[in-house]
């Protein structure tokens, strides 16, 4: 067992830089914008700023001096507190996923940052190292992997592991590192498709429009001065060349942006973990034990449906949205070809079985969907009637809105599919963008069937599931036949036969 250690000293530098970044606004305001001001508000503001800065700096240093961590075979032990000492323990078995983020700062110093997420609430919900040497991060991850796979073995085979606990780690880590298979890295074609789908080539269009209008202003002025410039501008080919150049630049920029974001993507897995790595400058890696995947979602926007692309998302109990500036990384590549997406789910999650055969809704559920009052339409129509827009008669707008609402419902009816397939449930919903949800019975933490009076009239009901996530993930299908809803309820009761009791 090791002694409790301090965090990497670079944490101080990292937090100081963060502090500088956060205080830029105050510096600019107090010392540049209001440079000459003698008003007491500003003068005291400056004093206050220095006091706050001093306190922040000393708290950063004090924190580094007092915060320590220690690992044993099974858990993290964290110590903190300047005046009130506190200590808490986070068992490895509670860790749901691991997020590693290497920003430019980290790369400059050859370090990285790691966050271990437990999916709990409150203090100790995640163990995070803002700066940590790569070697140390690897060591911790390996220790967790070992303890988790050991726990798995203990559960799956009731026999205790025969080998001494100390011998296992080294073997295990080496063997897992070797068996990693890469499932996907985007090709240039994928990136082109991605940049098109994410519409990032449109970024320059607002710029073009504003530049064009500015040029137009200038050109109008010169128009009065003389016809020379106008003759150039009015020549169509020159105008076309300029527009084409802008479009080209815009596309290149879009592709470059997409490349920075999705270029170095890699999805890999070994026997019991999934690894996702992304980013060219800022690198982020995400790893999750396969058994901790609560559900899988396949999302398609309208554009992605046209191009046959899909985004596969893993739902994990530890919050997946990491820091705002780090971005989401629960997604296996967001622009996967659909067939590849299905294959990959089968490859990396062999315990998941996807089936293409799914049930459709009966016609009665189309009727109920069309008949259901649309509050959105009612409220907007009332608003239109009261405020009588000038450009179009209110009833035309209202009719158009009604048509859109009904079309969306009709599409929703067409897109909805569901199936109970052994211990799996698949539900596909959505009118314009669709989501296919797949989960296992033992991962669903509760179910619900609801039936409104009007649904009873049609013999329909709504089914719903809840999965662990942060916040909980709810999914459901509206207006399935009551019989299917009953089957769903009974299907869930069947989970008692397959769960393992601790």
């Amino acid at each position, binding site marked *: 067992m090791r002694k409790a250690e301090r965090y990497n000293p670079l944490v101080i530098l990292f937090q100081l830089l963060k502090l500088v970044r956060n205080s830029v606004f105050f510096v600019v305001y107090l010392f540049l914008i209001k440079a000459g001001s003698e008003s007491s508000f500003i003068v005291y503001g400056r004093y206050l700023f220095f006091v706050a800065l001093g306190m922040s700096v000393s708290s950063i240093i004090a924190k580094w001096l007092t915060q320590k961590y220690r690992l044993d075979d099974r858990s993290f032990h964290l110590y903190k507190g300047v005046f009130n000492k506190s200590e808490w323990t986070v068992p490895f078995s509670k860790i749901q996923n691991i997020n590693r983020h290497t920003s430019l700062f980290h790369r400059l110093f050859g370090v990285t940052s790691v966050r271990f997420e437990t999916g709990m609430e409150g203090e100790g919900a995640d163990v995070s190292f803002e700066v940590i040497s790569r070697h140390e991060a690897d060591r911790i991850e390996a220790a967790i992997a070992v303890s988790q796979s050991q726990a798995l073995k203990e*559960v799956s085979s009731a026999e205790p592991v025969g080998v001494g606990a100390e011998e296992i780690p080294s073997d295990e880590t080496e063997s897992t590192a070797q068996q990693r298979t890469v499932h996907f890295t985007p090709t240039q074609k994928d990136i082109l498709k991605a940049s098109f789908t994410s519409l990032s080539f449109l970024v320059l269009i607002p710029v073009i429009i504003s530049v064009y209008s500015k040029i137009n202003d200038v050109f109008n002025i010169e128009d009065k001065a003389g016809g020379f410039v106008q003759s150039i501008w009015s020549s169509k080919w020159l105008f076309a060349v300029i527009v084409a150049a802008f479009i080209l630049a815009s596309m290149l920029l879009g592709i470059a942006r997409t490349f920075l974001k999705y270029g170095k993507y890699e999805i890999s897995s070994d026997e019991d973990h999934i690894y996702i790595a992304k980013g060219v400058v800022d690198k982020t890696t995400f790893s999750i034990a396969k058994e901790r995947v609560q559900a899988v979602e396949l999302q398609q926007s309208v554009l992605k449906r046209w191009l046959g692309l899909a985004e596969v998302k893993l739902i994990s109990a530890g919050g997946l949205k990491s820091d705002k500036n780090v971005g989401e990384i629960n997604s296996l590549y967001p622009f996967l070809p659909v067939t590849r997406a299905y294959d990959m789910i089968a490859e990396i999650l062999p315990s998941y079985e996807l089936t293409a055969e799914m049930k459709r809704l009966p016609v009665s559920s189309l009727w109920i969907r069309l008949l259901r009052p649309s509050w959105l339409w009612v409220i907007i129509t009332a608003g239109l009637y009261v405020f009588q827009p000038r450009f179009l008669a209110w009833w035309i707008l209202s009719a158009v809105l009604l048509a859109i609402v009904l079309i969306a419902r009709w599409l929703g009816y067409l897109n909805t599919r569901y199936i109970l397939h052994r211990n799996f449930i698949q539900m596909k919903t959505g009118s314009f963008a669709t989501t296919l949800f797949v989960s296992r019975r033992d991962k669903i933490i509760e179910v619900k069937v609801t039936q409104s009076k009007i649904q009873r009239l049609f013999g329909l009901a709504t089914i719903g599931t809840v999965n662990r996530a942060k916040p909980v993930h709810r999914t459901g299908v509206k207006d399935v036949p009551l019989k299917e809803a009953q089957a769903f*309820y009974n299907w869930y009761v069947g*989970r008692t036969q397959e769960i393992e009791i601790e």
Partner: protein
Amino acid sequence: MYTQLTPPRERISKDAVKVWLIGETILNAIGFLILAVLFYLDYRYSWKAWAGWILKGSTIILILGSLWTFIHPFFLYKSWRYDVSEEFLQIKSGVLVERHELVPMTKIQSVATKQGPLLRKYGLCSVTLTTMGSSHTIPALPQEIAVQLRSQIVQYAKIKEAES
């Protein structure tokens, strides 16, 4: 709904109706009081016409709503069923929308009994069960039954699923 499960049979205390009625009456009274004050202010300071319309509209909504809150408790009481077994918590409730909920005992994290002043008046308790992501409340049970239920759920919920 219940081919493999026995449908939930336990009912909540009949006094729940009174508790709900009193609670709703108090809330409605507060609502009307606020409206009355607003009407007075409208009259006193002659607000714009649309403010008057909004006030009249909300009065109608409040009247309709309060009528509903005087009928609703009776039906809600009639619809409420729950049951606790070694494996599942079952809840059935709802008047206009009937909801059936099924929560595995192994997923329940905590159980609490609560008692506000109204519930205390009738010697009732509410029992709240929390899972990893949601909570379910059985609104009004006689105190002994609530405590008994709480300890029973604690017994059942002690068993935990292997998390892997």
